[in-house]
């Protein structure tokens, strides 16, 4: 690594250093040092002040070096503290109390965190797919958004999006979550099916029951019966996750709530043609 690269790397690492409140005692010593400097005949003590400052600088340099040498160091907050992680030039992440998280990658084309447990609030303003958060249940991929992501010790989590879009991915399974919607995440299952936060409670419960495999038949019936136009967000995901034998029922309900646009035939939708599904999703988004 060239000197220039080392300096750049150090600069990027510095951006992730948490801002700590200086202990109150330090201000007293600084004031004393200033007084000593102002008072004639106390030059000897001033030199000691400089020596202390040099030692402090050396310690800070050591800390920076440690951070550079250990970019994957964990950031932990206790029950009463919060931290802010600056995400390059594209945004920031508030680390809520009781959280354990670390920076895994910090490059212009990839900013990645690993959330072990707790809660983070991300505020990103950048083109899609530059900011990622790994959890036990999968990866939240930023598509230009603001969101809250929680994860408990067992890997169960909740993604709630307040602006833009987030994609949550796990082993080829993907949930697209727009502003105003949430999605539960589960270890060994991945992302659940997203729903709008203003959906009826019975609808949300049916979504969860379906995802967890609890009486799927009843859950499916409840979702289809209670779905509003806006809940085509949930049905669009459901179409891709039901058994083939149930797919027509989901399609018919979606088509009744919002007829598919040109280019999306029944056959293509039932065959889960990716292009047709994207076309329909983009059209449905005008009602989400």
């Amino acid at each position: 690594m060239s000197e220039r690269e080392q300096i750049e790397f150090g600069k990027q690492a510095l951006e992730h250093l948490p801002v700590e409140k200086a202990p109150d005692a330090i201000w007293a010593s600084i004031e004393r040092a200033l007084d000593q400097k102002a008072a004639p005949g106390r030059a000897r003590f001033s030199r000691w002040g400089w020596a202390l400052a040099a030692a402090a600088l050396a310690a800070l340099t050591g800390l920076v070096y440690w951070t550079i040498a250990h970019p994957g160091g964990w950031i932990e907050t206790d029950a009463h503290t919060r931290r802010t992680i600056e995400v390059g030039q594209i945004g920031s992440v508030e680390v809520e109390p009781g959280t354990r998280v670390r920076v895994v990658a910090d490059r212009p084309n990839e900013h990645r965190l690993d959330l072990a447990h707790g809660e983070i609030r991300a505020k990103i303003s950048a083109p899609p797919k530059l900011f990622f958060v790994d959890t036990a249940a999968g990866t939240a991929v930023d598509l230009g958004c603001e969101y809250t992501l929680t994860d408990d010790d067992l890997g169960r989590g909740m993604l709630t999006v307040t602006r833009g879009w987030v994609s949550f991915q796990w082993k080829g399974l993907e949930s697209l979550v727009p502003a105003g919607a949430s999605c539960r995440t589960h270890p060994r299952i991945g992302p659940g099916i997203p729903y709008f936060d203003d959906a009826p409670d019975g609808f949300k419960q049916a979504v969860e029951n379906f995802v967890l495999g609890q009486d799927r038949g009843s859950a499916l019936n409840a979702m289809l019966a209670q779905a509003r136009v806006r809940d085509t967000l949930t049905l669009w995901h459901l179409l891709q996750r039901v058994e083939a034998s149930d797919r027509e029922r989901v399609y018919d309900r979606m088509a009744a709530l919002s007829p598919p646009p040109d280019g999306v035939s029944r056959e293509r939708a039932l065959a889960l043609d990716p292009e047709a599904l994207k076309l329909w999703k983009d059209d449905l988004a005008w009602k989400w």
Partner: protein
Amino acid sequence: MIRSLVLLAVFAAAVAAHPGAFTFVIGNAVASQDFQFKSAAFALRTEGCADPAKPQITATAEGLVNGTRRSIPVKVMPSHRPGVYAVVQNWPDGGAWVVSLRGTCGDKSAGAIVPFGPQGMVRESAQFYARPATNAEVDAALKALASVK
């Protein structure tokens, strides 16, 4: 029988005369699929204009604040998707506000009144016209909105 055929012919002619009326479609900011507009007040697109790049669209925020009418020009910003635009709020939060959209595509025109409540756009109460909304229609929408607040 003849009467039915005549009615059918008239209906067909009417449909042919308006092959997809020029109109606005509105949606939440996410519909723009453009990260730059994630905080937009709403997204919009047009239908019934052969060339999506052709429509001329303008907008004003019309408000009723403490009994006083206010009017603020609003910028309609194109997204990276052809024919899709976003309106970012530049009007104050207090009072009752609607956004009046006006568009033209060749000799066709369209208008819409999009009301706003405490939670943002009230899509269900939006009104669409095959012409710009009149001042009376804007005033009526504002009064209806103010009475709800």
